[in-house]
């Protein structure tokens, strides 16, 4: 039994390292192409765009979200904004109505039917070349749209572009950890964008060519992760998704670990359910990096984190039992013996060494992401706190997500 778990352990560690090396190699191959634009981006041509903002009980942030859209550096006559209230029970609709007078803003109110239904209502009215979606708790950088549109103009094969998401004004412990996590995510998504392996078009202003919806249809409920499902559907139809690393969108992150847990439970439950629905995309070379790298790495990550945490938990448990036995044998007084330091007792084993390499690669991705987002590689104490805290809490939401998938229990949105 022990040897089987050891083999699983080594295989998972190998695959985890493999994925990280893959990203690192991709980075070094493409580092000269990753240019961070400063100042205003001038476009030769401004295609027409509709931004759909679907909201449900977002009265705390909706005003600022709309204001940020109005501040976009993009010709007003080319930019339409659809504000769709999905049956909010708070003051969201009152905030939305304040913007009724703007000529390029259209407002809609409907009964609550889920985010996908709100976006689909907007899609029915879209007449522009491009469509973007924005969550009502996110704020856009004035240059975000220009920079993303440039990606479409540079490559006709690109069917959707997603921006770099940054945590807005992190205050709580949980938000500061997520800030670090999102830096790492910027690096990973940039690499996946290069490899054409992006598996999600998150609600922070993804832009689609309108023909995407003509080809593959609108959004689906998709286990409350419609942004993941549509990305998989696009790959199924060989529609390319790119990542615009210097188009920044700021999002409000869950301000407590419990809220973070609820969010991640929904994300990973949705990821697994969508993966089951789109299992035919897995390990099929014709679907490229998504099939051979992104989706397998998602599965490997979930099982590695669960397995490693259980493995280390069993080690910690054994240590705890030994300490209890020691306490029973000699009492607290007998336990306070401080051993002499000797290099002999510094244990250098292969797995901790490989884990150190993995953690160094994670730190590299965080710093690279920070360089892209903030033009700084200054290390932060939250990097260590992020790695330690996520090592403890991530297995919990992964385990619960796996459990929910097994018993088909869908997590709530909030």
């Amino acid at each position, binding site marked *: 039994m022990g040897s089987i778990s050891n083999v699983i352990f080594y295989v998972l560690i190998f695959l985890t390292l*493999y994925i990280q090396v893959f990203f690192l190699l991709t980075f070094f191959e493409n580092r000269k192409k990753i240019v961070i634009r400063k100042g205003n981006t001038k476009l030769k041509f401004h295609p027409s765009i509709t931004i759909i903002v679907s909201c449900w009980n977002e009265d705390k942030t909706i005003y600022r979200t709309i204001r940020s859209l109005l501040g976009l550096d993009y010709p007003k006559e080319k930019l339409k904004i659809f504000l769709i209230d999905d049956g909010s029970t708070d003051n969201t609709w009152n905030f939305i109505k304040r913007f009724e007078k703007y000529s390029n803003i259209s407002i809609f109110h409907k009964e609550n039917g889920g985010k996908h239904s709100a976006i689909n209502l907007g899609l029915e009215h879209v007449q522009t070349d491009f469509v973007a979606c924005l969550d009502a708790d996110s704020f856009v950088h004035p240059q975000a749209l220009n920079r993303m549109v440039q990606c479409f103009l540079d490559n006709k094969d690109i069917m959707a572009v997603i921006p770099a998401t940054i945590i807005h004004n992190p205050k709580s412990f949980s938000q500061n950890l997520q800030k670090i996590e999102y830096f790492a995510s910027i690096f990973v998504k940039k690499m996946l964008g290069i490899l054409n392996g992006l598996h999600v078009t998150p609600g922070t202003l993804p832009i689609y060519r309108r023909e995407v919806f003509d080809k593959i249809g609108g959004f689906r409920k998709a286990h409350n992760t419609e942004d993941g499902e549509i990305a998989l559907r696009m790959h199924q139809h*060989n529609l390319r998704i790119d990542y615009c690393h210097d188009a920044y969108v700021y999002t409000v992150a869950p301000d407590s670990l419990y809220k973070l847990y609820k969010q991640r439970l929904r994300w990973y439950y949705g990821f697994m359910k969508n993966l089951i629905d789109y299992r035919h995309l897995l390990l099929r070379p*014709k679907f490229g990096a998504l099939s051979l790298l992104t989706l397998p790495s998602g599965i490997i990550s979930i099982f590695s984190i669960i397995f490693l945490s259980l493995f280390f938990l069993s080690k910690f448990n054994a240590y705890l039992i030994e300490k209890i036995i*020691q306490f029973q044998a*000699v009492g607290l007084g*007998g336990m306070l013996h401080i051993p002499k330091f000797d290099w*002999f007792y510094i244990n250098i084993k*292969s797995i901790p060494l490989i884990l150190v390499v993995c953690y160094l690669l994670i730190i590299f991705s965080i710093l690279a992401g920070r360089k892209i987002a903030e033009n700084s590689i200054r290390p932060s104490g939250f990097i260590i706190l992020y790695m330690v805290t996520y090592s403890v809490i991530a297995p919990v939401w992964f385990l619960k997500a796996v459990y929910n998938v097994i018993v088909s229990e869908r997590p709530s949105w909030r």
Partner: protein
Amino acid sequence: MTSQNDWKKYIIVFFITLTLFASAFYITDYFYNNKINQLKSIQDNISIDILSSETQFSLLQELSCKDVDNSVLSQEINNIADKINYSEKNFATDNTDIRYLKKYYSLLEIKDYLLMKKISERCGTKNSFILYMYSPDPTCTDCVKQEFVLSALREKYPQLRIYSFDYDLDLSAIKALISIYKIPSNVPVMVIDGKNYQGFKTIEEIETIIPQLKDFLVEEGEENTKPAEKPAR
């Protein structure tokens, strides 16, 4: 669509990862060998100790009691006991190098025990001995507990000589000890003054079994005796 170049990349990354893995194993192996060499160097010291022990044992007949050093073994033995314990826990349990060192250590303990008993009988010195039989099997929780108790006792009474032996170690000298003292197989077992004490014993119970331990506390500071051996488990 995955092109030929992409496949090349997947293979290159595989070999880079393999190299990183192999390097980690190589480094581990390098440090492991260093540790084994360190243990072997201590083993050389023990060999000298054995020789010294034997020589002193022979000379005992011709020496007066005041000339006899009460502690024959070097301090190295405590050191190696800890290191063997640590290596046993952290390296492969079937490691032949470590088992070999452990056998050597056990022989040394027996030699010291016999010599100290002789000195004690001939010169009337106050010495207390515990022969402790244990199993390294982690399921023997009483053995783990007993080890903590004996370590605490050793710290409290440096004059107390504790000789610990792995019951399952394939060593004829240990088998002879088991046979002589009729030690049962359900460890932990302690042999004190020729009598077997089976099962876990607390510090207080051992102090009751060996009443002269209290005298050691009184005499502390008057006698300059070296600490006894640590249980090697």
